[in-house]
């Protein structure tokens, strides 16, 4: 009988414990409940509902269930999609090989590095093949808009971060009126984006008398069409006649990139300034004693210790550029053709102009997954390089 008594006793204890634990946790659950509910309703529900919509022929009203047909319409050819994803997988493999090789200088590792480079080339070729098949059979407009989005992100984020960091570093020095400068730099970020985009549109109009063209004339340069120029910058400035992705962004998109940088570098400056405030002064003093000049201190102290902030800003900015809409919509001109139509603008057009809600939802889900994938990849690749002190 003794064992039975023991078991009953333990069960009672466990029950009492779990009840007590539940009572204790209940307060915690009550505190987090409002946040969880808000996130569920306004954060997760729209995503799940978009996913649901994307599985239907949902025009202005809900139509038949069509499964993945909207996704098939995007990618056109699942074989092409599979090839592309295979290339992406090889890209990951190349990265893994490269990082392993980088950890050692021995000869086998050198061979590994060469192997990584080969895999990289193969991955690029396979991705290109897969992409070509998708563009040929799928939704060319949407797939091209993804490329334009990447052009926009790559053109905007690194420059706005670099400028933000440099300005923050300058403002961190002992200079007069730095509060005023801080405010001036932050102004573009707090000014309504539609207003500033309209002003930019006027400054960068194709007229010979536009402000941008007047400034060019001071340097004896001819007028440019700016936001009205669909040709790639490589052609406008370098005379290169490249086709497709290799040609790079159009001058119209380049002008919008300029706006993106101008609009957001002030925000980055302020965040970097906060980060700079967290770097112990002793480190600079120690560097100075060791004979480091200003550049060396910036390179070896400031940049590494700002890396958590840089990492955060990089992630947020990158996601932001993928979701950017307002200024792109305002600054787009018919003359730029489809060279400034990013994914978010394309989705908007499909939703409202074509009133194809289900298909727009499927495009949104694809964009969401791309952002998620890129964020995870950035987290993996850049996160390992962040120095937390």
């Amino acid at each position, binding site marked *: 009988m003794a064992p039975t008594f023991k078991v009953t006793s333990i069960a009672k204890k466990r029950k009492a414990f779990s009840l007590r634990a539940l009572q204790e946790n209940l307060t915690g659950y009550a505190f987090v409940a409002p946040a969880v509910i808000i996130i569920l309703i306004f954060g997760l529900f729209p995503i799940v509902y978009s996913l649901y919509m994307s599985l239907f022929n949902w*025009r*202005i*009203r809900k139509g038949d269930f*069509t*499964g*993945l*047909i909207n*996704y*098939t*319409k995007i990618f*056109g050819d*699942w074989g092409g999609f599979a090839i592309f994803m295979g290339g992406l997988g090889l890209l990951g493999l190349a990265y893994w090989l490269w990082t392993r090789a980088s950890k050692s200088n021995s000869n086998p590792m050198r061979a590994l590095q060469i192997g990584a480079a080969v895999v990289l080339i193969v991955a690029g070729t396979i991705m290109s093949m897969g992409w070509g098949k998708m563009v040929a059979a799928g939704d060319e407009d949407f797939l091209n808009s993804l490329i334009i989005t990447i052009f926009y992100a790559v053109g905007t984020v690194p420059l706005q971060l670099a400028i933000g960091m440099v300005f923050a570093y300058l403002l961190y020095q002992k200079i007069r009126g730095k509060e005023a400068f801080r405010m001036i730099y932050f102004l573009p970020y707090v000014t309504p984006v539609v207003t500033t985009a*309209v002003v930019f*549109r*006027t400054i960068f*109009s*194709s*007229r010979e*008398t*536009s402000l941008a063209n007047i400034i060019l004339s001071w340097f004896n340069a001819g007028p440019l069409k700016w936001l*009205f120029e*669909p040709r790639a910058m490589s052609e406008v400035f370098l005379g290169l006649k490249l086709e497709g992705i290799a040609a790079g962004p159009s001058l119209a998109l380049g002008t919008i990139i300029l706006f993106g940088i101008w609009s957001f570098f002030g925000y980055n400056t302020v965040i970097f300034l906060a980060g700079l405030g967290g770097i112990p002064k002793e480190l600079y003093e120690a560097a100075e004693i060791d004979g480091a000049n200003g550049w060396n201190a910036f390179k070896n102290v400031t940049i590494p210790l700002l890396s958590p902030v840089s990492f955060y800003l990089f992630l947020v900015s990158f996601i932001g550029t993928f979701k950017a809409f307002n200024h792109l919509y305002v600054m787009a*001109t*018919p*003359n730029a*053709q*489809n060279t400034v139509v990013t994914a978010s603008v394309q989705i908007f*057009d499909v939703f*409202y*102009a*074509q*009133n*194809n809600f289900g298909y727009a939802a499927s495009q949104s889900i694809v964009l969401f997954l791309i952002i998620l994938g890129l964020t995870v990849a950035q987290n993996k690749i850049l996160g390992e390089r962040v120095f937390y002190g």
Partner: protein
Amino acid sequence: MRNKFFAIIAVLLVATFVMAACVPAATTTPEPVATEEVQPPAAEPTKAEAPAATEVPAPADEWADVDPSGQQILFWHQHTKDREAALLEIVDEFNTTNEWGITVTAEYQGSYGDIFTKMLPILNTPDVPDLVVAYQNQAATYQLTEGLLDLNSLVNSPKWGISEEDQMDFFPGFWAQDVFPNFDNARLALPPNRSMEVMYYNSDWLKELGYDAPPATPEEFKEMACKASTTPFSKATVEGSIGYELSVDASRFASWTFAFGGDVYDYEGNAFTYNSDAGVAAMTFLKDLFDSGCARQVTEAYGDQTDFGNGSLLFTVGSSSGLPFYAQAASEGANFAWSVAAIPHTTTEPVMNVYGASVSVPRTTPERELAAFLFLKYYTSADVQAKWAKVSQYFPVRASVADKMADYFASDPAYKTAFDMLAYSHFEPPVPGYDFVRDEIEATMAAIVDGGDVVSLLDAVNIKANEILADQLAQIK
């Protein structure tokens, strides 16, 4: 844990491909265009033709027992400044004088486009307004969900409707414009006003150039425009001059195509015809103007209005609803004499592009729908129309209103000139998806004036426009 994760991913991937295989493959065959024909819009609205829309009277008055008393009506509109003030005055008068105690609240909800985007997600929900301004193509899009009330039964209701005499008073072309053959001849709106695409010209400058009258043909237009580009206006307040400024816009495309004797839509074949001979001729003509340095593109919002006002632009084509703004720009700018005329044409008579948003009644409750209609009936009554036309500078939609506007015609000769051209009106197609088609046309026009090949670009955009049309019409159940 890691293995479990990969197993889940693998299962999901397999499920994805299985689902992809289960659904029917995406078809590349264009969906068939609905076979029901869109009727061509009636031309020559001032001729006393019997309106086609209301020939079949309702068999019984289904509205006879509906009571609109005490209803609160919400009206979404796009009017601002003087027009909004005048509309609010009309609304106030209705609210204080109507015998049923109906209260209308007029709310500005942004531009036509803003209202369209706000309406789409709320159609057939309790959030819809009771009255909403809508272009014909927008109303057609709303009706894809049967979101609007067919006003035929109300218009012809013996108890509440518009009398036959009053119906005949509407310009027939305007009256017929809100009847949609694609939707079993449903009347989806009533027209409170219309505008027209006209050519604005600087008459003082024309005299300086040695011309007594505005151009009537494209050849004359080119000659004058090119001369102006090299001979600036003496009163101009800025340097430089240009003959014509084109804003790339689907209505401009339609206006020039009409002027060259064609149309952008084949109402018998139910298809867009942007690559018609007239369309090609019109765009080739405009491209030639650009190539000759006699025209340039409008690059800023209302930039042509500004240039016209400061005396550096001889001709521009735009909506007659811009009359007050051009008048202001000219008087505050180079201060010169100006007027409007028909767009230079190759046809024997001008063909003018007339358009305008009507007011639709989204589906709500019978009581609210009736109350909304009663306001609409009031809004389109002759006396209110006269008041509305004078303030808004839109054209009234009823012939009898002209008699009440003699003083106004005398004070604004440009308005009278445009009003007289209503006899030559023609319309853009009232089909769903036209907003999307317009975007495509704008991009095509931009490519043409940037040096693209007219024929191949118009061929390509025509295919795209018809694909959009087919896609939209396929939604009609």
